[in-house]
């Protein structure tokens, strides 16, 4: 770009026209060359194929605990994709084990695809036919139709019948009926299934895929086949958990083993949950067999355009299926994936499966992006900032953070598998918490997520700023259908506020003990569908119910003297209750910072004999504090609690002599006054270490004396003035 300057100088030295002509080309070429440089895409990564694992789970010494009793529902699916009709036709044989003390007479089935069957389904009515990226063009309804249901076997043991055994059984036709909302149906069993018994049923189904929408469907030749087969609800001691598929809701299912036979057009590149155990190509069709163990869902994708890349991380095969125009981003996704694996294995225990597949939806199919399934997830493309790159614009939200987030779900959904309908925060919110921990681990000195010029936004800043939005409409611990589609609160509350409250707690009680608590939770509840109370109990068991954040330091001469530091104790149970169950906000304001004359001893006082003595004039009453001796002044700092959520908070005061002092306040009163005798404060800051991620409003956290600018006005005004000058100059009048 600056090549143009040399052109200017040479122009001045000689005749006008030829040199001016040069100016044109020099300037134009310089500009284009500079812009061209920044527009270059990164190169495609080197690819070293990694062999398909032979087992769906990692070796026992690497996979951590995989409790056999968590295996409840096994699925054998045989499905054929008709790419022209965008239909999947198949059968599913479900073996379900009753590991509760309840007896059941029916099996509730999730028919998720029926959420997209008509305008008046619960899902579509709430979303008004639109999802994240709006209403799709060329809309095609999606549905799933059960065409037959048979009882294949009922037995008292809990071992799955072998295929040979099943073939020898005489199937018995079953009745089934959709509920009012077609995303649920019930299959009536001819006899009850009691504790310890198991039942095998076989269903034939046809699934019509919708135009890619709400994570599933097709776009041209791309297929994201998810929520596509009938799935059994979860039987708990309190009864069946089978929820209507609603706008924000995701999924809840039991663990089990899956064997899936897929028949697709030969040209398709297929990615699926689990590992591929067989492949056969004949007559223009490709027949693939997959096996997945101890998972609670099975999803697959097919696209003839997928380009495939591999990496290996400690025996885990990482497979990336990416669109040809984005292959330059593959390395960045691998890096994000590996860093996330490293961090999460360290923090939450071993990843149990032998594979993970990263899927990129094509342009136009973005609705399939950013979704998790067992051992497979869809990510999003990395935004190309174009010329903005020259302005120092960079971000890690698009693409990289999606990869971090969706892989994080392999733990906070795939492995812990909480009820996402009843307590979505345990999944999305705890996963976002883990994502932030991953970012801390990945960029320990600088966990940035966006940069512009010499300015940047950290992951903590991004969460705080999100809370400025709709974080006080709904509480965190709510069933998913209470978050209405017309409110913007779901993403802010369930994802960010959960992360903010967890990380605020971490900052208050100490990173080490909090991380230990999270690890204990992850270890104890692998494959066990924990509830919110399990998380709270585990954290409290590790951290302690009451955590002393500041020891009492009472001035013996005057215990009520505000210089005294009262004991500050955090009740972790109360904290979690208020953070999870209310919409109360954490918000403090530094109301006062002033230096004032200290209260003296002038006037009349009684002596030991009871006589009034003294009567001196007050010393320095009318003297400006700046002229008083240090021992005649004190600094007064007053903090207001504006929010209804009291959280212990720290105050830091800097004095004219360069020293600083810190005080802790439990935040329970509406305000608190701190005095610092003999000191002249020049700055006071609430939460100087920015521990309180729950506090979104922080502009009123600092006051200064003797400082003329407020730290922000000049920057904003200069930017506005420069924008005006650019507009004036840019018009080229």
């Amino acid at each position, binding site marked *: 770009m600056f090549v*143009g300057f040399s052109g200017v100088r040479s*122009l001045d030295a000689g005749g006008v026209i030829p040199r*001016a002509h040069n100016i044109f080309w020099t*300037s134009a070429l310089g500009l*284009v060359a500079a812009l061209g440089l920044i527009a270059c895409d990164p190169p495609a990564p080197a690819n070293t194929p990694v062999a398909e694992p032979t087992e769906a789970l990692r070796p026992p010494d690497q996979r951590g605990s995989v409790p056999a009793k968590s295996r409840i529902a096994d699925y054998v699916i045989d499905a054929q994709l008709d790419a022209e009709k965008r239909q999947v036709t198949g059968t599913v044989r479900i073996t379900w084990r009753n590991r509760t003390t309840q007896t059941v007479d029916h099996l509730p089935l999730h028919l998720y695809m029926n959420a997209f069957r008509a305008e008046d389904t619960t899902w579509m009515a709430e979303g008004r036919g639109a999802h994240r990226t709006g209403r799709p063009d060329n809309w095609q309804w999606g549905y799933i139709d059960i065409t037959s249901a048979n009882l294949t076997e009922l037995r008292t043991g809990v071992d799955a019948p072998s295929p040979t055994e099943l073939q020898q059984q005489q199937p018995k036709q079953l009745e089934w009926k959709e509920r009012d909302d077609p995303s649920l149906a019930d299959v009536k069993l001819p006899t009850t299934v009691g504790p310890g018994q198991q039942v095998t049923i076989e269903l034939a189904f046809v699934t019509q895929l919708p135009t890619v929408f709400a994570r599933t469907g097709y776009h041209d030749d791309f297929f994201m086949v998810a929520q596509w087969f009938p799935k059994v609800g979860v039987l708990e001691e309190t009864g069946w958990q089978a929820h209507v598929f609603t706008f924000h809701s995701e999924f809840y299912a039991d663990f089990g083993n899956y064997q899936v036979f897929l028949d697709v057009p030969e040209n398709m590149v297929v990615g699926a949950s689990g590992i591929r155990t067989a492949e056969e190509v004949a007559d223009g069709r490709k027949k693939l067999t997959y096996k997945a163990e101890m998972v609670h869902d099975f999803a697959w994708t097919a696209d003839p355009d997928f380009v495939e890349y591999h990496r290996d991380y400690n025996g885990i095969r990482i497979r990336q299926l990416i669109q040809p125009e984005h292959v330059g981003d593959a390395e960045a996704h691998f890096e994000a994936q590996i860093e996330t694996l490293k961090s999460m294995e360290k923090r939450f225990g071993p990843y149990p499966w032998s594979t993970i597949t990263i899927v990129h939806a094509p342009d136009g199919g973005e609705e399939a992006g950013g979704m998790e399934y067992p051992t497979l997830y869809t990510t999003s493309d990395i935004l190309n900032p174009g010329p903005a790159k020259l302005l120092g614009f960079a971000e890690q939200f698009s693409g990289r953070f999606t990869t971090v987030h969706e892989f994080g779900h392999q733990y906070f959904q795939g492995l812990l598998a909480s009820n996402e309908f009843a307590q979505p925060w345990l999944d999305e919110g705890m996963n976002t918490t883990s994502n932030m921990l991953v970012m801390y681990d990945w960029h320990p000195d600088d966990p940035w997520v966006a940069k512009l*010029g010499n300015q940047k936004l950290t992951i903590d800043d991004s969460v705080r*700023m999100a809370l400025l939005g709709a974080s006080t409409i709904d509480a965190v611990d709510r069933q998913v259908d209470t978050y209405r589609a017309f409110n913007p609160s779901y993403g802010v509350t369930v994802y960010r506020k959960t992360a903010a409250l967890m990380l605020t707690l971490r900052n208050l009680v100490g990173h080490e003990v909090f991380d230990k608590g999270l690890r204990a939770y992850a270890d104890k509840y692998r494959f066990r569908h924990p509830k919110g109370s399990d998380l709270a109990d585990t954290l409290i068991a590790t951290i302690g119910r009451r955590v002393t954040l500041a020891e009492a330091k009472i001035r013996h001469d005057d215990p009520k003297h505000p210089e005294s530091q009262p004991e500050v104790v955090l009740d972790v149970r109360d904290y979690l209750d208020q953070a999870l169950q209310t919409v109360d906000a954490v918000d403090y304001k530094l109301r006062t910072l002033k230096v004032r004359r200290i209260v003296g001893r002038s006037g009349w006082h009684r002596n030991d004999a009871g006589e009034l003595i003294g009567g001196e004039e007050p010393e320095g009453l009318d003297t400006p504090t700046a002229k008083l001796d240090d021992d005649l002044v004190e600094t007064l700092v007053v903090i207001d609690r504006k929010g209804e959520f009291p959280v212990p908070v720290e105050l830091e005061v800097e004095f004219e002599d360069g020293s600083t002092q810190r005080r802790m306040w439990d935040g329970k009163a509406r305000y608190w006054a701190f005095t610092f005798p003999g000191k002249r404060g020049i700055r006071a800051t609430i939460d100087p270490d920015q521990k309180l991620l729950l506090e979104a409003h922080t502009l009123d956290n600092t006051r200064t004396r003797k400082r003329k600018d407020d730290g922000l006005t000049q920057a904003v005004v*200069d930017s506005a003035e420069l924008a005006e*000058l650019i507009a004036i100059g840019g018009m080229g*009048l």
Partner: protein
Amino acid sequence: MNALQRVRSAPGLWLGLWVTQLVIAYAFSRPVAATVSQAISPHTYLREQLLPGIGELFSQNPELGALIGTAVVTAGILSAITWILLVAGVISRLSGPKPTAEFIGTAASKSPHMLIVTFYALIARALALMTAGLLVRGLEQPLIKAATVFVVWSICSVALDRARTQIVLAEASALHPKTLLHSFRDLFRTVPKQLAAAVGVNFLAAGFIVCSLFVAVWGMGTGWAIWAGRGLAGLTLAATLWRIAIAVESVEQGRNQAG
């Protein structure tokens, strides 16, 4: 005297116009300053990273965005009006040294003409840009698209410069659109090299604008950014005067040859 020498020989003109720009920009940033200061007062933002503070400030004071937008647009409009009022005087001054009274007299007497020809140019520019937009729509390279559109924009500016100069120096009629249309024709037929030179200078001005953008972003929160930006505004103005001086020189050469 070549085009650049004409600009260099009129430092007072450049300085006066520059200061006018600075005053307009400064004046319209004052309401922004008052509003932001009021929003933060009496607190202080001490973090080195400004984006979180700015994010909170704008999210809690959404009127600020509107205020800044209004300031930018209003400053632009006022600057455009000022320019239309002064441009005849500017052209006159670039044609040779003139007393201040003559500068003011030319500017005042020709400003209605300048307004009319600018209006025609606005229509021509809109049509040209729409046509260019349609032509490059199918191109895949965004850089080529942007460069093409900018060349078309520049050609319109250069044609307007020539038409204005013809009106001021050659007493061409401003009322009839043919003055502007002939300027476009002449640029391609008679003085294509001047056209190339002026478009090149416009690229240079665009370079200064891009630099200003850099300064605004990379210098955010620093003391030097505003002065660097003001300096670049002066350079952008100098480049614009240079572009106009190319038109002045070209018209004068034409008149001399005809004479």
